[in-house]
């Protein structure tokens, strides 16, 4: 390869090639595979350098030498900001009536309070490059590209600088980077942590010492000040202060919240105190009970009643791509003046937009057994062997494929009592507990949660 070939290709990427030179380059690229290979190599280098340094500029890192006319270097910065804004507006405009599509999905803990670019953030909010997320309470899980995950604990503030770059301004976060997400970079005021296929935690304490802790794999650590670097392996950690001093220490995994499984409890109610009436609030749940029929009573540690219906509104955003599995666990006990198994019904229903979608408990009919009634089916599905009397049961619905199963016990196991299909993608908005005239229901505890995967598959 001649030196002039390098100069020719570099001139193309420098934008200093005259039109005739460009024509010459085109002609030769179509005829000379070696030149094309050289061109590709330079193109990739040019791209990497642009990404490396443009990214720094967009992130607000100052240039090493102040320009004489600072307004000139503002131009690309403002242009980049405008492009990001236009992209966001375009995205919203092209997707009317839907949440803005974003680069990273956010899921929140039940108690989380957070803001995205100064506005209150909601569960399911998107987190786009350039955005700032502040977590005031609870935790936020970021589902980043290439299946990387960050779990940010309050109080914390971070900026999603670029595709694989996060700036943790303050607070604590844990990162999980599968092989496809290799290279995720986390910056703090004092350190830069670059993933090498691992799970690690970062702590940012402005004015103090920032820390990086490796739980699995390894990371490369760089001090922002000076040229200090270190490679941290599993169980190793290091603190970096504002002067660039790196001090090694043992990793403290217990200081960082566990990443999995992702769970959002929508309702948790133990009927062991108070009275049962419209307005009763459960231990966990954003709504309250609504008693529409009958007068069930709390007796000791459970609720019991006959001929009653009580409803509870469920958050419709709890089931999501990140948490596609719904689990409804009920602990039933003897209770009420009538039997549980009758020709009527006694049990639990899930609703969507006012329609009962499925029921489990003792269904209408003469069979004395627990059953699953998928309302689009003609008859309730019963287990191969009858299951009678008060029990703890768990209904599992998988939003991804619509599978619905009934399991005995407080968690789904490998062998459901019955299995059926609902439509995929459902978001249930109410649960009903109740019993028909002539039937009774005794309930000690009800839990409804959405989660990433069952805890005990």
């Amino acid at each position, binding site marked *: 390869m001649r030196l002039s070939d390098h100069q020719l290709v570099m001139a193309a990427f420098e934008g200093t090639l005259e*039109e005739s030179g460009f024509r010459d380059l085109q002609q030769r690229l*179509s005829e000379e595979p070696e030149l094309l290979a050289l061109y590709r190599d330079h193109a990739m280098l040019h791209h990497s*350098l642009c990404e*490396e340094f443009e990214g720094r500029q967009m992130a607000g890192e100052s240039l090493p030498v102040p320009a*004489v006319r600072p307004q000139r270097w503002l131009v690309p910065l403002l242009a980049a900001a405008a492009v990001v804004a236009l992209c966001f507006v*375009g995205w919203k405009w092209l*997707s009317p009536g839907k949440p803005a599509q974003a680069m990273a999905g956010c899921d929140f803990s039940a108690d989380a309070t957070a803001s995205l670019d100064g506005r209150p953030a909601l569960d399911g909010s998107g987190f786009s490059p350039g955005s700032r997320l502040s977590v005031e309470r609870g935790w936020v899980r970021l589902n980043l590209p290439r299946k990387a995950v960050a779990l940010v604990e309050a109080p914390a503030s971070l900026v999603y600088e670029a595709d694989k770059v996060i700036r943790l301004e303050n607070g604590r976060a844990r990162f999980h980077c599968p092989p496809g997400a290799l290279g995720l970079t986390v910056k703090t005021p004092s350190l830069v942590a670059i993933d090498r296929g691992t799970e690690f935690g970062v702590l940012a304490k402005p004015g103090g010492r920032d820390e990086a802790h490796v739980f699995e794999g390894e990371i490369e650590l760089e001090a922002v000040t000076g*040229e200090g670097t270190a490679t941290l392996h599993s169980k190793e950690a290091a603190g970096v202060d504002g002067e660039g001093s790196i001090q090694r220490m043992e990793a403290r995994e217990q200081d960082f919240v566990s990443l999995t499984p992702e769970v959002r409890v929508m309702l948790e109610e133990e009927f062991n105190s108070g009275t049962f009436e419209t307005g009763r609030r459960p231990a966990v749940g954003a709504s309250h009970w609504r008693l529409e029929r009958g007068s069930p009573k709390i007796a000791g540690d459970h609720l019991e009643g006959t001929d009653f219906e009580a409803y509870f509104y469920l958050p419709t955003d709890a089931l999501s791509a990140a948490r596609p599995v719904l689990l409804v666990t009920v602990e039933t006990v003897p209770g009420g003046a009538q039997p549980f198994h009758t020709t009527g019904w006694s049990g639990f229903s899930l609703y969507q937009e006012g329609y009962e979608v499925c029921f489990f408990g003792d269904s209408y009919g003469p069979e004395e057994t627990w059953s699953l009634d998928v309302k689009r089916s003609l008859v309730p599905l019963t287990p191969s062997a009858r299951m009678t009397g008060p029990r703890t049961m768990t209904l599992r619905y998988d939003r991804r494929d619509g599978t619905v199963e009934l399991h005995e016990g407080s968690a789904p196991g490998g062998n459901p009592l019955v299995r059926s299909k609902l*439509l995929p*993608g459902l978001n249930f908005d109410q649960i009903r507990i109740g019993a028909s005239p002539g039937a009774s229901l005794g309930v000690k505890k009800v839990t409804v949660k959405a989660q990433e995967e069952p805890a005990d598959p």
Partner: protein
Amino acid sequence: MDAARNPGENDVSEDFVRELTDHQTAMLAFIRALMPGSSGARDLLQEINIILWQKRSAFQIGTSFKAWAFQVVRYHLMNHRRRLASKGWLVFDDALVERISPALEADPGELENRHQALHHCLAKLRPKDRELLQHRYASGAPLEEYAKLIQRSPGTLKATLFNLRGALRKCIERRFHDQGIPFP
């Protein structure tokens, strides 16, 4: 409630957004390769993102997003050559774009490996050399201004940049070799 009316639609969009996100860097690299010396690659990428989003129903999840997206990039460049040329951007002619595109397409993984290698190599440079590169790629200001500031001649800086790029190319290739990654 959209999910209930059109089951799976949201999931499809999420898959699509994930593919789109994963290929942002690769598309940008491809655009930069086909428009050497132009500063508008990011603008063009945003135009193409919007087109891809509008056409998302035409993309079948499970097929190659890269092949589909890069084809859209090629067609967009060809269809808008005159407009792009009016901005002073150099764009290869249609026949050449078709001919050399396969060679210029890079996978997200390759770009990531290259970027990591670059990061490693940059750390080995002298601070003043890194500053020169940073000035060149971050500021967009003419080299002459920077030359004046550091009291060097523009010609010297151009030669330094030339040498730096050459050194970085070699270092990146070596880094690939050291890590047992085939150099494309």
